[in-house]
């Protein structure tokens, strides 16, 4: 009763592959048409010659790196303490880390702008607010991957061993625990990187230079250069996912994120 299904399987797979690749192929072809009549990489050259592009993209990379570093500094000690000492906070923290799924980014940024553009906290123009917002957006992925990493190692034994050798808390956290969960942290970090680089809403409404708002602006202005940007952005996402897969080979499922 099942063999006839193989043809259907191929049918659905072909459809899926077409859906997946046709837009990418079209974008790529489109990006090569900057000069009439020939296929060239001119659009890519143009993009790199725009100083706006370099500035915006560098800012995005800067935001991403700051988000990752501060995120690690906040989440690793928390997840570690919860695992070791404070399991009663587990449910509360899990609830908090999942909140960004319930609150859409546009609603969140609305709250941020309204909250921090009036006294007592007038920090809406500060880049720190943007980074804080990104940390919140990346929380479900970052905290979870740190937590999964901690689950895989014996936190208690490692801590006790380090303590009995005379290590202080700083040494335990950064020289014992951190290296042991570096794979988990790295996969969280690359996912965060992909999210922050492609993120439009926060940067747009907190009015900070970033890659996605620049691209949205360029779509209105040019025809072929945005295609080159889209291809580069796709390659970047692909690279991040590829690196995560490489780290996490054989365990866990593919990362799921969203910056739609």
């Amino acid at each position, binding site marked *: 009763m099942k063999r006839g299904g193989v043809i259907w399987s191929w049918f659905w797979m072909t459809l899926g592959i077409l859906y997946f690749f046709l837009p990418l192929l079209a974008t790529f072809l489109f990006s090569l048409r900057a000069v009439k009549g020939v296929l060239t990489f001119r659009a890519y050259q143009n993009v790199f010659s725009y100083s706006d592009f370099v500035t915006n993209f560098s800012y995005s990379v800067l935001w991403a790196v700051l988000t990752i570093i501060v995120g690690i500094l906040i989440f690793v000690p928390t997840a570690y303490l919860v695992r070791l000492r404070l399991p009663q906070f587990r449910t509360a923290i899990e609830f908090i880390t999942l909140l960004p799924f319930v609150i859409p980014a546009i609603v969140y940024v609305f*709250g941020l702008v309204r909250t921090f553009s009036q006294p007592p906290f007038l920090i809406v123009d500060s880049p720190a607010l943007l980074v804080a917002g990104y940390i919140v957006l990346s929380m479900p992925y970052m905290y979870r991957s740190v937590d999964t990493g901690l689950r895989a190692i014996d936190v208690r034994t490692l801590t006790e061993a380090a303590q009995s050798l005379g290590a202080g808390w700083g040494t335990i956290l950064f020289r014992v625990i951190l290296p042991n969960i570096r794979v988990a942290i790295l996969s969280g970090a690359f996912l965060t990187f992909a999210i922050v680089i492609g993120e439009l809403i926060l940067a747009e409404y907190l009015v900070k230079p970033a890659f996605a708002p620049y691209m949205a602006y360029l779509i209105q202005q040019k025809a072929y250069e*945005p295609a080159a940007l889209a291809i580069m952005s796709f390659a970047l996402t692909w690279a991040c996912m590829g690196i995560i897969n490489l780290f996490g080979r054989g365990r866990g499922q593919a990362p799921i994120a*969203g910056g739609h």
Partner: protein
Amino acid sequence: MPFFLFALFFLLYPSSKIFVGSFEDSTSHTFTFQYVWTLLHDPTLINAYWISIKISLITSLGGGIFGFLLAYSAIRGGLPSFMRSSLMTFCGVASNFAGVPLAFAFIALLGQSGELTKLLIALGFSPYRYGFSLYNFWGLSLVYMYFQFPLMVLIIAPAIDGLRREWIEAAENLGASAFQYWRYVAFPILLPALLGTMILLFGNAFGAYATAFALTGGQIQLVTIVIGDQLTGNVLFNPGLGYALALGMVVVMAIAIAGYTLLQRQTERWIR
């Protein structure tokens, strides 16, 4: 703990502000239902919710069905096993490939001078002459599908793995037809997982903003777009109403996530 301070200041405090702002008169700071009342009686705003809900329903159903068929084909459809791992990798990338670049990819494919559009015109069939447009509701749905179905594949795959081979064999031995197997065995077991994942897809589309913004520049009045307009002051500026709009979104999302959690628990009873 720095974590709680951080979460309190940057997440819980701004969120509570939305809640408070929806019920607080913006000038006299007294309690009021006026914004929520306005929200529920303003045809434009109700329509914005309706469009958002409609597009989320359509793409979660469409993406859900297509994603399930794909996942089932790859896992149980008798295809070579490398197809499965490549599908999973593609889906991981595609579900993360959204927003501005995704919008542009579809413009390059099906926009007025898109590659496929030009090809079709060369073949004597101009899609735009037959009422197709990438920039209307159905065009946007088509684009949303691109991040919807991969998410379905990723989340439903474990449930399909959980369908044991013994069940299909047992059903065969008892003389069941393929239809009967699906109707009485596989479908009831998968139902909570299918519904739960589709609800998640619903939330995924409902909160989406960047794709619609980049594709149509705000032509399609989704709730998220309307909230964005409230922020930039593109429309008649009414802070309280903005809060109420945002609160309404959170309510819909909370219902969706609660439904998903509930159904997820049902799923775990069968599928480990």
